[in-house]
């Protein structure tokens, strides 16, 4: 490579002997207090929330919009507080949450039975795949008219549609998760003598947990939407029920502050489930195990 010398511009070498003495700058300096506070996500988001609420209040007060159409934040908050104190709100919440829990649990149970069958036999696996591909695209709420025919106007109809909304989402996602478990892990499981149900619960379930958790979340989201929707439809027909019915009833009676109060609660419950329950499960499992994508 001697011809390189012709092409490159050769300069003399040099070396700096005493570095570090002329340094007049911090190598590492903490950021200012303001910068560090502004870097806290929660602080920024909370201020934005406050800003939004303030804008809402200011808009309803200043624009003179009809309160029946769009109540201010403060009157809505008052209505919320009042319904909580009178016990109306807790009662409605309990009605809804009870159905949700029963439906969710029953849905998981059905999904588990189908899945175990699917893991153990090929017929089961085919049946599950066929059923999910048919019923997953079917909105559970559209079964409500049939459910009312079969089970009458009562909680069992609501439980039925809730089960339907949970079952297929969970089954599909879990099945996909199971199939994605690596051959190595399967062989490890068999190596230690795990067969049948213990094999499913000790190897497949934890190994496919990332996918299962997605299924649980999607199932919850569908169930929550379906239940609120079903209570609305129900409200239109019968006239008793939980939060969804409250939204409907207060809307019919033009008590919009109470509609907003009920919507608040729907949001709060949604946030609780997603950010407290599921976040915690996630932190204790797949995050801890380093299994997130």
């Amino acid at each position, binding site marked *: 490579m001697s011809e390189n010398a012709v092409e490159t511009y050769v300069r003399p070498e040099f070396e700096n002997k005493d570095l570090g003495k002329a340094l007049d700058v911090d190598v590492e300096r903490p950021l200012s207090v303001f910068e560090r506070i502004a870097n806290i*996500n929660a602080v*920024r*988001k909370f201020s*934005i*929330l406050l800003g*939004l609420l303030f804008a809402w209040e200011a808009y309803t007060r200043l624009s003179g919009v009809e309160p*029946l*159409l769009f109540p201010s934040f403060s009157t809505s908050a008052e209505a919320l507080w009042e319904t909580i104190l009178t016990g109306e709100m807790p009662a409605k919440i309990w009605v809804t949450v009870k159905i949700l829990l029963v439906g969710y649990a029953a849905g998981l149970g059905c999904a588990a039975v189908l899945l175990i069958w699917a893991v153990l036999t090929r*017929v089961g696996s*085919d*049946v599950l*795949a*066929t059923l999910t*591909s*048919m019923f*997953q*695209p*079917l*909105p*559970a*709420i*559209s079964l*409500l*008219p*049939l459910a*009312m*025919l*079969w089970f009458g106007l009562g909680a069992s109809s609501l439980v039925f549609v809730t089960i339907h909304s949970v079952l297929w989402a969970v089954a599909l996602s879990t099945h*996909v998760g199971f199939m*994605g478990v690596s051959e190595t892990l399967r062989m490890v499981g068999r190596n230690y003598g795990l067969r049948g149900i213990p094999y499913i619960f000790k190897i497949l379930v934890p190994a496919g947990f990332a*996918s299962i958790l997605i299924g649980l979340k999607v199932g919850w989201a*569908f169930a*929550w*939407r*379906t239940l*609120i*929707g079903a209570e*609305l*439809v129900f*409200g*239109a*027909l019968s006239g008793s029920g939980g939060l*969804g019915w409250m*939204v*409907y009833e*207060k*809307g019919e009676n*033009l008590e*919009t502050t109470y*509609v907003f109060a009920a*919507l608040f609660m*729907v*949001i709060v*419950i*949604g*946030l609780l*489930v*997603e*950010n407290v329950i599921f976040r915690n499960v996630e932190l204790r499992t797949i995050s801890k195990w380093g299994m997130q*994508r």
Partner: protein
Amino acid sequence: MADQSVTSSGIYVRSEFVNEIGVAGTGEVERRLSVFERITNIDPLRKFTILIIMVVVWELYARIGNINELMFPTFSATGAALVDALVNASLLVNVWNSLKLLLSGYAIGISIAAVLVILAVGSRIGSDLLTTLTAMLNPLPAIALLPMAMLWFGLGPGAIIFTLLHSIIWPVALNTHSGFQSVSETLRMVGGNYGLRGLKYIFKILVPAAFPAILTGLRIGWAYAWRTLIAAELVFGGQVVDTSGQLGAEGSTSGGLGWIIFENQMENQTPYVFAGLFMVILVGITIENGFFRNIEERTVRKWGMQKS
């Protein structure tokens, strides 16, 4: 020490050997499976068989079990009702009514989500605003807004589209935004390196790089919207009964699929309810497997970007 003996360290030393391979016959190296085995290995075939078995079981159960047709019609009655509804009762018009609402809601919703996300890319406050809004509003089932929407926009497509928008915007915006945020620093720098700025940067780098997440958002948005639409049409059905109202009066061609299901159930036409449900499943499968699966094949799968 001799060849075959135990060494002082306790190792049993054996003589070496080399085999001549490929001279002697080695038996069957590869054999086709039997015809039966190969047929049962065809996935669609097995699933189709299962489908047929389920239909037969349904028919037998409904016939032999002497179930009241009002409660649980036979498969054949359902099929006949479906054909009848398609030919005589303009079921396709109802499907189209639903799809029309859904598509316009979907298009508007995606546009609004796109604007929100583009604003969020530009600044930290925009990004914070979007994440706060989505965190608040995504857990709120869109259908719960229907009563307010009916108050604001009256009984009609306006109220339904408003609820549809709400069901689409948040999941799409949420997934797109988080997809953008997880685009690798390297790809971002590559984009900047070739002089891409602003919208060009978003559409030529961020959108394709975050496409798996965007597609997930679009799918969730569609799923929520489809469910919300059916529910909204059911509620409208309830409204009609309550207030002898406005939708039903125009006849059954003006409503959507949800409305048809509701109406037939009210009139105890259970086979027609089943026929309506058939159509709902059919539309769902078409969009899921026909549309989204296709997009997935042509994009994230081809690019090797799909997860799991």
